[in-house]
C-alpha cells in the first residue's frame, strides 16, 4: 500500500504549494480567481473544430508554472487523472463525424478527430488552470475570494468542507485498505463481496471523524466566516494582472494568432 500512501501525501502537496511566497502567490486571490474564470470562459467559448486558435492559451499555464515556481510533473500528474473522463466524452466523435475536415500532406483528418483533439486540449487547459489556481492561492484563500465576489456563503463553506473531507476520506480509506490487506492473504485486492461492508464502514468512520473535526472548529470559535492571516488589500498591480491576462485571452479568442503569424511569415492572404 506504499503507493497509495505516497499518493495521499501527494494530495497534501497541493496545499504546500499554496503556501509559497512567489510573485504569483503574492497576487490577490480575487485577481487570480477572476483571471481563471475568464480563462475558462474563453477556453470553453471556442468553436467545435478549433485547435490552432487554442494553442496561444498555453502561454498562460507556462508563465504561471515558471513564475509560481511549481513542479510541472506534480501538477501534470493530477491533470492526467481527469484524462479517462475526457476520453469517454470525446472518443465517439471520430466514429460519428467522419466528414473530412483538414489534410496534412497525404493524411485526411475527419471532423471527429479534430473535435476530439479540441476537447482534449480544452480539458488540458481548463484543468491545468484550475489546479494552478489552487496551487498558487490555497483553498482557504479561494474561499475568501469567492465570498468577496458575493458567492453565497453556504456554497463557499460547502466547497471548503468538501475539500477538507477529501483528506479525511483518503486517510480513513488508506487505514481501512491497510487493515484489510494485512488480513487477506490472497493478496489480490479487495473482493467484490467485501466492497460493500468496507465502503459502509468507510462512510461511517469518515462521518464520525468529520464530525469531530467540525466540533474542534466550533470550539475554536468557527462561525461560518473565513478569516485569513494573509489578508491584503486589492492593489493596482492585482488589477493590472487581471486586466492584462484577460485582454490577452480575449485577443486570442478573436484573433487567430497562429494563422496571423503564418500569414505574416509566408505572406498569404488570410
Amino acid at each position, binding site marked *: 500500500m506504499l503507493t497509495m500512501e505516497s499518493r495521499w501525501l501527494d494530495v497534501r502537496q497541493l496545499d504546500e504549494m499554496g503556501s509559497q511566497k512567489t510573485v504569483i502567490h503574492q497576487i490577490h486571490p480575487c485577481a487570480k480567481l477572476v483571471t481563471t474564470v475568464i480563462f475558462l470562459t474563453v477556453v470553453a467559448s471556442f468553436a467545435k473544430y478549433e485547435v490552432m486558435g487554442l494553442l496561444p492559451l498555453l502561454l498562460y499555464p507556462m508563465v504561471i508554472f515558471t513564475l509560481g515556481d511549481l513542479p510541472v510533473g506534480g501538477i501534470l500528474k493530477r491533470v492526467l487523472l481527469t484524462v479517462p473522463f475526457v476520453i469517454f466524452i470525446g472518443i465517439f466523435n471520430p466514429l460519428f463525424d467522419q466528414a473530412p475536415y483538414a489534410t496534412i500532406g497525404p493524411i485526411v483528418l475527419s471532423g471527429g478527430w479534430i473535435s476530439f483533439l479540441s476537447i482534449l486540449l480544452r480539458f488540458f487547459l481548463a484543468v491545468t488552470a484550475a489546479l494552478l489556481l489552487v496551487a498558487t492561492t490555497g483553498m482557504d484563500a479561494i474561499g475568501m475570494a469567492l465570498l468577496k465576489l458575493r458567492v453565497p456563503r453556504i456554497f463557499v463553506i460547502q466547497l471548503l468542507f468538501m475539500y477538507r473531507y477529501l483528506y479525511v476520506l483518503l486517510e480513513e480509506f488508506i487505514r481501512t485498505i491497510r487493515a484489510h490487506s494485512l488480513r487477506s492473504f490472497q493478496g489480490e485486492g479487495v473482493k467484490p463481496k467485501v466492497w460493500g461492508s468496507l465502503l459502509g464502514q468507510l462512510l461511517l468512520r469518515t462521518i464520525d471523524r468529520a464530525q469531530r473535526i467540525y466540533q474542534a472548529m466550533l*470550539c475554536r470559535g468557527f462561525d461560518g*466566516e473565513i*478569516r485569513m492571516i494573509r489578508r491584503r488589500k486589492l492593489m493596482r498591480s492585482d488589477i493590472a494582472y487581471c486586466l492584462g491576462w484577460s485582454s490577452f485571452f480575449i485577443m486570442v479568442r478573436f484573433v487567430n494568432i497562429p494563422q496571423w503569424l503564418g500569414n505574416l511569415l509566408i505572406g498569404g492572404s488570410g
Partner: protein
Amino acid sequence: MSHHIVEVKDLEYTYPDQTNALSGLSFKIHHGESVAIVGANGAGKSTLLSHLIGILVPTKGKVRIGDYPLTKDTLSHIRRCVGMVFQNPDDQLFMPTVFEDVAFGPLNLGLPIEEVEERVMSALERVGAAHLRNRPPYKLSGGQKRSVAIASVLSMLPDILVMDEPTAGLDPKARRQLIRLLQSFTHTKVIATHDLDLVLDLCERTIVLSEGKIIADSSTLEVFNDEALLIRAHLEQPMSMQGCPICRKNEMMKIVPMAIATHRLR
C-alpha cells in the same frame, strides 16, 4: 470574569440510541483548581467533557461556566473562555501550516492581525514549538502535534483548560515535557485520563466516574489509597505509588525460599 468556576448540577445525558451515558452528576470546580476525571473505558469521561464546552447539550440538569449558564446564546462566550484539547490532535489540526492552525482561533475572535500574530507566536513559544510554525501539521511527530494542539487552544487565552487524554500516544520524554508544561499553567484544568501518574503529578483533586455516576470526589491521594474504590472503577494505583518493582521482586525471592525452608523443617 472574576472567577472561573465550572459548575455541573444534576447533569444527565442519554445518547440518541438510548444509551444512558451520564446520570445525576454534580460538582463544582473552583478557580485555579486542577481536577482529574478518571474511570473505566466507557464510564462517561469524554461525554462529560463534551458538556463543558457545549458540544453536547444535557438531557437534564445544568452546566455553568463562570458567570454564565451554558445555553445556546452563551455558547460563543463559553467557548472563548474554555479551551478544549481533543484526544486526537489529528482531529484538531486542519490548516495547511502550524502557524495558520494556531491562528484559527484568534482570527475567529475577530482580533486585528498584529495581535493574532503576537498571540500565535507567544502560544507556540510557550509550548516550545515556535520553530515548527511553517511546517504542515500532518508531518509532525505525535508529541509535536500535541504541543501544537495545546498552542492552538492557548492562543485564545482561555481561563479554563479541558483536556481529553493529553498523554495518550506520547513517548515517555514527550509525556514528561507535557506534564512540566501543564504544571506551569495557572489555568483551571479539567483533565480526563487513564494516566494516573499524571494525575498524581498534576491534580490535587480527582473525580472518579463509573457507569455515568460519580463514585468518588475527593483529594487525589485519598482516592488512590482506597483500593476497593479503584478496583470498582477498573483502575489501579499509579505505578509511582506501587513501590519499587525490583525490591518487591527481591522481597518475594527472599520470602518464598524461607517459607519453603521452614515448611520442610517442620
